[in-house]
């Protein structure tokens, strides 16, 4: 369906009135994207009767220079350069009525180092466009020239590991539960027990900010007592993600400064604070030797449905540019949405220096990260020690595994819960490194480790049948064999 250009040229192009987008220069099937272009891949669902090429050209137009009618003021600019060019439209396999539109944008359309500007351009206007039933931003190719204008993760996986003195295994964490209602003193108790039992990190939940039951300073003070006490008891570096999310930047900076003053190694923010606030906190974190954890609060409102919104792989790319150190990226086996192949794609985006196009993982472009720091993915939500072999297989070793309920809900107490997770993890890494087929021998490896660890034995017993097997709503469109030449 990638027929030739219909662009009207010369004087006729600027005759007053309405002209189809595909004729205005937003559909250029012969265009070859430059190395410096930003490329966006949209899933376009046109209204019935709307030509998919015209719909895709409209997306290119409305996300760059166009408006609904011809304007003569285009002629005061190098308009051809600034027009986004849709250069390819493919039907989505097995999804009638949906099309993948590839659109190239010149680098000059964007401000250096600004996710706010990038997103305002690409998703700012076009998602409510009437001729479309639905629109989804599936993936983006970010040129090295643009990547290099961003700070990237404040700390990065390598330095985080060096600073935490933890190598060769996933890090372990837990979110303090219940999410709401604990006083500062009670909250610190949970942190202490979990860290002393063997976790590396504990975590505030996304909506733990500063409420009547626990103001933020109380939480910070008691948490740092817990961290230091656990550190002395174990001889290991420990951390707790102090959530500094607040109503204003001034409040967030105040909380972050206090966390630093108390000696915390890590702070946390929520995705809902917005891209600019995230970039500001990433700069603060770089200046203050702080690991920056990002909780992707709210993302499912726009990432989960396949036909409309923004794919999480795009959010992951933006957050790696923006400069956070941790990002929740799915568990596959836990309670939240996450098809294995799609999740694999997210993890690759976070951790690799170069992503190869892998359609079966939903990764549509080669992406060179140009030595930008690696971003540590976090797996959290409904996971437990009995799944350790699967977690290691799906997620690899550069990940934070967070067992909230799976630590705090342990029948013998929080310390025992933490110990069970740590023993399960170490036993699995030991076995993997020895060359064993740990995925298939997993239950056996865990059972053996449980012989010398009662807490693990009891964890395996309590949660032995817990799985979350539901159909995914967001999966790759291509089977593993598919290939598309660029």
């Amino acid at each position: 369906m990638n027929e030739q250009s219909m662009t009207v040229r010369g004087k006729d192009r600027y005759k007053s009135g309405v002209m189809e987008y595909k004729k205005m220069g937003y559909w250029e099937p012969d265009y070859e994207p430059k190395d410096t272009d930003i490329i966006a891949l949209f899933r376009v669902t046109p209204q019935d009767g709307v030509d998919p090429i015209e719909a895709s050209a409209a997306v290119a137009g409305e996300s760059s220079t166009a408006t609904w009618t011809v304007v003569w003021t285009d002629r005061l600019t190098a308009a051809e350069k600034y027009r986004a060019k849709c250069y390819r439209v493919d039907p989505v396999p097995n999804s009638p009525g949906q099309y993948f539109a590839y659109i190239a944008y010149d680098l000059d359309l964007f401000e250096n180092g600004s996710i706010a500007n990038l997103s305002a351009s690409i998703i700012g206007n076009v998602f409510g466009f009437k001729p479309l039933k639905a629109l989804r931003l599936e993936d983006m190719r970010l040129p090295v020239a643009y990547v290099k204008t961003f700070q990237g993760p404040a700390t990065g996986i390598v330095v985080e590991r060096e600073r935490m003195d933890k190598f060769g295994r996933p890090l372990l964490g837990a979110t303090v539960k219940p999410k709401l209602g604990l006083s500062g003193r009670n909250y610190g108790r949970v942190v202490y027990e979990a860290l002393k039992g063997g976790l590396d990190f504990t975590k505030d939940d996304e909506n733990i900010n500063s409420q009547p039951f626990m103001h933020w300073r109380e939480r910070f003070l008691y948490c740092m007592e817990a961290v230091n006490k656990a550190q002395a008891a174990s001889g290991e570096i420990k951390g707790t993600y102090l959530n500094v999310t607040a109503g204003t930047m001034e409040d967030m900076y105040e909380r972050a400064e206090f966390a630093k003053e108390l000696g915390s190694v890590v702070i946390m923010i929520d995705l809902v604070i917005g891209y600019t606030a995230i970039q500001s906190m990433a700069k603060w974190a770089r200046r203050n030797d702080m690991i920056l954890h990002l909780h992707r609060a709210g993302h499912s409102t726009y990432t989960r449905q396949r036909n409309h919104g923004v794919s999480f792989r795009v959010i992951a790319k933006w957050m790696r540019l923006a400069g956070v150190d941790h990002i929740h990226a799915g568990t596959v086996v836990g309670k939240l949405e996450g098809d294995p192949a799609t999740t694999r794609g997210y993890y690759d985006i976070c951790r690799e220096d170069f992503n190869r196009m892998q359609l079966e993982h939903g990764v549509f472009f080669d992406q060179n990260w140009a030595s930008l720091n690696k971003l540590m993915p976090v797996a959290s939500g409904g996971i437990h020690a009995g799944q350790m072999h699967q977690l290691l297989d799906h997620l690899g070793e550069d990940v934070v595994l967070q067992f909230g309920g799976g630590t705090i809900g342990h029948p013998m107490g929080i310390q025992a819960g933490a110990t069970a997770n740590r023993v399960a993890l170490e036993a699995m890494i030991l076995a993997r490194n020895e060359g064993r087929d740990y995925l298939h021998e997993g239950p056996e490896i865990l059972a053996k480790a449980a012989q010398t660890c009662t807490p693990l034995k009891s964890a395996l017993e309590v949660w032995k049948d817990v799985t979350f097997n539901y159909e995914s709503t967001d999966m790759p469109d291509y089977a593993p064999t598919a290939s598309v030449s660029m």
Partner: protein
Amino acid sequence: MRVTQGCFSFLPDLTDEQISRQVQYCLGKGWAVNIEFTDDPHPRNNFWEMWGLPMFDLHDAAGVLMELNECRKVYGDRYIRMSAFDSSHGWESVRLSFIVNRPKQEPGFRLDRHEANGRNIRYTTKSYAVDRPEGMRYGDK
């Protein structure tokens, strides 16, 4: 008290055979294994003493085990760890680290609290062992 630094501290102490399999894994990845020892296991003491240089260009774990046993003969009353370095681009750091020798008694750490402004407390983690001079910290050696 048991210092739980390193990758396998929550498991029973590794046997030499287990250590050897982990070392072989590292060598298989092309990482250089280094033996390090200390009698100051403070969590922020990054620079343990090196037992020679990292063992570059080695293919057989037996050589590393031999060095470990030599190290144990001299510093068997201290903490000894294996660290594996990956020189590949994007890492250039330690990729695996685990303790392979401990003192018989691990005295652990004291947490000093220094009351500061308001409710702030300054914390200092101090190893009980470092009250004694280096080399005399564990046992009677």
